[in-house]
């Protein structure tokens, strides 16, 4: 009985870990963390790229909108010019016809 007890006591005896054991464990843990496959969407580089792309998209949309507005304004101005020109033309043709009719009526009497 004593022998068994002695053997158990010997086996269960507290032993100090070898020197540098804790450091080695921590180093292994951080090493594993470093090489762990990170979620692609969570990568900072991806997030920066996404933010950049969104900024570019916003700028492009803004430029396109401004271009559209300018085109619209130019078109409206051209239309106004055209309508003015046609109104003047119509007015002068009207004048010519009125004069012809007036003179024709005078000649009849």
């Amino acid at each position, binding site marked *: 009985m004593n022998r068994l007890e002695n053997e158990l006591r010997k086996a269960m005896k507290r032993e100090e870990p070898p020197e540098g054991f804790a450091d080695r464990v921590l180093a292994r843990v951080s090493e594993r963390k470093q090489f762990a496959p990170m979620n692609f969407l969570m990568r900072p580089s991806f997030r920066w790229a996404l933010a950049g792309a969104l900024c570019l998209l916003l700028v492009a949309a803004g430029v396109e909108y401004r271009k559209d507005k300018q085109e619209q304004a130019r*078109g409206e101005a*051209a*239309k106004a010019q*055209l309508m003015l*020109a046609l109104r003047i033309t119509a*007015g002068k*043709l*009207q004048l*010519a016809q009125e*004069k012809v009719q007036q003179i024709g009526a005078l000649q009849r009497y």
Partner: protein
Amino acid sequence: MRNTTFLCFSILGLALNAFAQAATSCKLPINLDRLAAKAAEVVDVDMDANMLQFAGKFLNGEKSDEAQARKLISSLKGLCVRSFEFDSDGQYGAEDVEAIRAQFQSPTWSRMVGVRSKRDRENVDVFFRMEKGSVTGLAVIAAEPKELTFVHIDGVIDPQQLNELGGQFGIPKVEMPAKPSGKAETK
């Protein structure tokens, strides 16, 4: 080397030709700036085919006058209007009007209407250019005591379209013969 020179001259020739065509789309004497300086109001519209087509895109087809305008400009090469409104009489001379009128003294142009009214001091000339049986140009010169207007429309104008414009923009229903047989002048 010779080929390059030939190519350069060809391109230059084409460019000059295009420029000349663009420049002749509006038949105007050069001295109109003098009139513009005296005028109280000046309307200066000069549109080439590209500009006309561009403006046409913005015309509303649901509005009758704009729909008619779109139809009318579809075959036009140019539209030029100069209108000078003066505060008083005698701001322009007969020679100014004659200079404009002289531009249409060519076999291709026919004066269809020439009104000389001494009572109202209003003179109106309407010229048409006929080519191969179709009207390819219209010019109006209206000289009133306080207003001088010049209109030049370049391009194929369907007489029916002008007729259909009756009531639009105040354009009268002008009855035009298919082929002008002579000048109809009323003095």
